[in-house]
């Protein structure tokens, strides 16, 4: 669900860009990146219990 959500956020970011809403696209991209980093941290530490 989270992964699908990340892809969906990128799609919306692309849509905002095409709709000529650059600021909104940039804000959403930043939010997507933060969520992706948190997801990475969750999976990277969960996989083999190795700390980053």
């Amino acid at each position, binding site marked *: 669900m989270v992964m699908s959500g990340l*892809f969906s956020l990128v799609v919306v970011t692309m849509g905002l860009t095409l709709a000529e809403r650059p600021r909104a696209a940039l804000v959403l991209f930043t939010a997507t990146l933060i969520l992706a980093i948190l997801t990475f941290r969750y999976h990277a530490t969960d996989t083999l219990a190795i700390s980053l």
Partner: protein
Amino acid sequence: MSVRAGDFDMVTASSGPDLTRALNVVALYAVVAVLGAAFWVQFAFDNLPCPLCLLQRVAFTMMAAGLIYNLKFGPRARGYGIVLLGAAFGGAVSVRQILLHIAPGDPGYGAPVFGLHDYTWAALIFGVAIVATAIVLLFDRGLSAGDAPRRLGGLAWLAILLGLLVTLANAALALIECGFAVCPDNPVTYQLMPSLPSLIPF
């Protein structure tokens, strides 16, 4: 006639906005091709993407979003920034996955393609993307010349459409694979549609 400092820069003068736009279109097609190849590996080798693999795909779509930004608004520092952040994030994830399997005797995750695993190819491509973007920034005249957006051609629109479609397809496949829970570390079946591989003609 006003004279700007950039007018005397022989290096930046060698690369105009048209070339930069063409490079952005080519790069967008390259990202689409990489994501298409990932689909092919997924279904031809029955290689379900793990969470880290999916995050690398997310990074590629982020790069596509930056390239679309550049195509829509003209080459901009923001567009290149998005591309660089996406590539840096993807590089971190792929290197992390390489390190997970770096011990001698570890078979790695999934089937190797042309001698390397997906995540190793991804690390190489993210590295190339970062270097290529840096080179384009070095030679890009559009950023300093206030390049205005122009009407996009058919090839550019096709690249944007394909970028959107491949990202949407990834969203759908990630939902089918992971369901409504957290993606398993070693997925063995599609949670919402176990018969999906038999429906794909590879």
